[in-house]
């Protein structure tokens, strides 16, 4: 019986719907929990971070003005494609956990996409209002996306944490730049491949692999990033420094150790717009 040598995947970045290597041409080794070599992942630089912000900003206008129905369809499609690659995700996640734990995480991640996909056309109903002002105006408040959101994944939840971070932001029309965990980046690379084949417009989700402590300061001080999710930053000194830099353009900040899920997390990246529309003949 003849053996065929495995064709190993090159783990690349995901920026603007494309899969570039780091412009710095650097990579870093990824190992499983026993220390076995798994792959060389691209090591994103600050320039890659900036390129990803440019891609996210370019995608914002179309994604935020897409209909809620359309965004819901696209996000549900991500769940569908992930389901088809379920075994691959379980194998990848289990490099750092048992098969049982990996299975639970992957199924939960797929279900998260389904849950968020159903939110797109309900956010306005649940978080909006019409306001009975004491003058002849129809006054209403609606949620709108904040803009470009940057985030850093938790290392102990290589897939589910990342999905939560991405989906909670893009559900309302934000676009994101996320940095995968440097310990467990391979499921993030596969997630990028799923997103690339799920009708998500290029640039809506950008996924970098590398070291948060290297890239995060540049994203925190970036004047075209509107929100920053620090929930995955374990180093509390780094987190304070990032929150301080985020003040430069008054980014909305999700602090570490604030365990928000579901709608509270979605609301982190929402603005409320109030419109006074005249009444009269």
């Amino acid at each position: 019986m003849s053996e065929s040598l495995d064709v190993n995947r090159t783990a690349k970045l995901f920026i603007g719907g494309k899969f570039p290597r780091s412009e710095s041409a650097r990579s870093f080794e990824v190992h499983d929990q026993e220390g076995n070599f798994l792959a060389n992942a691209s090591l994103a630089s600050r320039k890659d971070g900036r390129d990803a912000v440019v891609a996210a900003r370019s995608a914002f206008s179309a994604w935020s003005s897409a209909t809620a129905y359309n965004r819901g369809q696209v996000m549900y499609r991500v769940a569908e494609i992930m389901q088809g690659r379920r075994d691959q995700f379980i194998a990848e996640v289990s490099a750092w956990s048992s098969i049982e734990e990996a299975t639970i995480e992957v199924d939960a991640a797929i279900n998260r996409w389904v849950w968020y996909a159903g939110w797109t056309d309900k956010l306005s109903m649940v978080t909006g209002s019409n306001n009975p002002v004491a003058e002849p105006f129809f006054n209403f408040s609606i949620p709108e996306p904040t803009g470009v959101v940057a985030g850093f994944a938790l290392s102990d939840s290589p897939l589910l944490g990342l999905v939560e971070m991405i989906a909670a932001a893009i559900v309302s029309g934000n676009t994101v730049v996320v940095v995968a965990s440097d310990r467990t980046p391979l499921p993030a690379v596969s997630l990028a491949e799923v997103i690339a084949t799920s009708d998500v417009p290029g640039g809506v989700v950008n996924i970098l692999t590398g070291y948060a402590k290297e890239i995060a300061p540049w994203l925190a001080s970036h004047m075209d990033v509107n929100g920053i999710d620090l929930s995955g930053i374990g180093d509390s000194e780094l987190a304070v420094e990032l929150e301080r830099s985020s003040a430069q353009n008054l980014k909305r900040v999700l602090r570490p150790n604030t365990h928000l899920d579901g709608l509270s997390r979605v609301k982190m990246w929402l603005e409320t717009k109030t419109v006074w529309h005249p009444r009269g003949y």
Partner: protein
Amino acid sequence: MTFEYADAPESTSVVTVKSNYRHFINGEFSAGTAGEFATINPATEEHLAHVAQGSTQDVDRAVSAAREAFTKWSAMSGSERGKYLFRIARIIQERSRELAVLETLNNGKPIRETRDVDIPLVAAHFFHYAGWADKLEYAGMGPNPAPLGVAGQVIPWNFPLLMLSWKIAPALAAGNTVVLKPAETTPLTALLFAEICQQADLPPGVVNIVTGDGSTGKALIEHSGIDKVAFTGSTEVGRQIAQAVAGTHKKVTLELGGKAANIVFDDAPVDQAIEGVVNGIFFNQGHVCCAGSRLLVQESMYDNFMELLYARVNTLRLGNPLDKNTDIGAINSAAQLAKIKELSIAGDEDGATRWTATCELPAKGFWFAPTIFTEVSQSHRIAREEIFGPVLSVMTFRTPDEAIEKANNSPFGLSAGIWTEKGSRILQVASSLRAGVVWANTFNKFDPTSPFGGYKESGYGREGGRHGLEPYLKVGA
């Protein structure tokens, strides 16, 4: 035709200005530990009173009082808390003229505004949030809504009592207790409000007011005993606050600067638009964070519109703020006047054309005549920076897309205006503007039920309505 107006001054006999004002801590007025400063009437530069300068110890004492009061206040039933707020709303209505006159004396804004806008809105705000106190679980914030604790609140001088109401009413309704620092130049109505809290029998420590300058505000915001920071003021100070709270558990809302675009399309109801543009920038001497300070006029109607605008602005009456016919009052302080002058000179130097209303300025006090700059380009400082004075920068556009692009070309995103008779255009343009409040065929309207707050560098969080409760609640506890 020129109208002559007889003087119509509002009497100041309704209010007694004391010679000294002290902090309001734990239900009582008490002296501070850091001396005092003088507060004046900016329209005359006359001395009004001495006010306590809040020290770190004073702030500490106020925060402790608020902390102690929190246990009972947060445990009180929502309906009882609400009744206190209703009482406060009623006393504000009963003492409205007194509050209006004192506000005008200390701030310099026309009595017509304090009487018809500020004070009625203050009462309405308390009335609105009073009704929320026993309905928090219906506010849609999540299960088991609970107060945060002690709120540290710092407010500006442009709408002294109105900003106090925006801060205190939702905080108390949600079950928090507060320490509030009014602006350095306008502390008096906040201290009269403290008397109203006493008349309402509000439990001691629920509302504490510490007066002082920026250092007092800083001490409050950095105090480790507060759980919530609410600030209205400049973007620069907002940034410092966002940095100061980094790494803490403090929840923050910031209502900061703006550079609102007021967009006039060629199918606008012209007379109404002229009134709205004037109100947008000259209301409250332009001391309004959401002021319509960038006018965008569609090119096809520019000449006609500007002619009407100049004519209308020339009829504005500037002068004694206590006169009921006055439209434009005094600039709030010498420092603010200097800033307005500096930015106006920058407008000249950048190449814009200055037009100034033909009105006489009083000899004493701080005054700046309504001013309009044309031939302004987007890179000019007067098109980018908040002037916070009666200065309008005018630009033009040809298409709706160009108007939207220009309107959004700003680090701020607080408010915007749209003038057109076409309803579909209002909704389409409104949805494209990156601003927290969009007024169509009106401007500078406020209502307690209507959420207010900005996008981008205009801050975060909302005040007013159901949304205004959220900054003062935690859920799922």
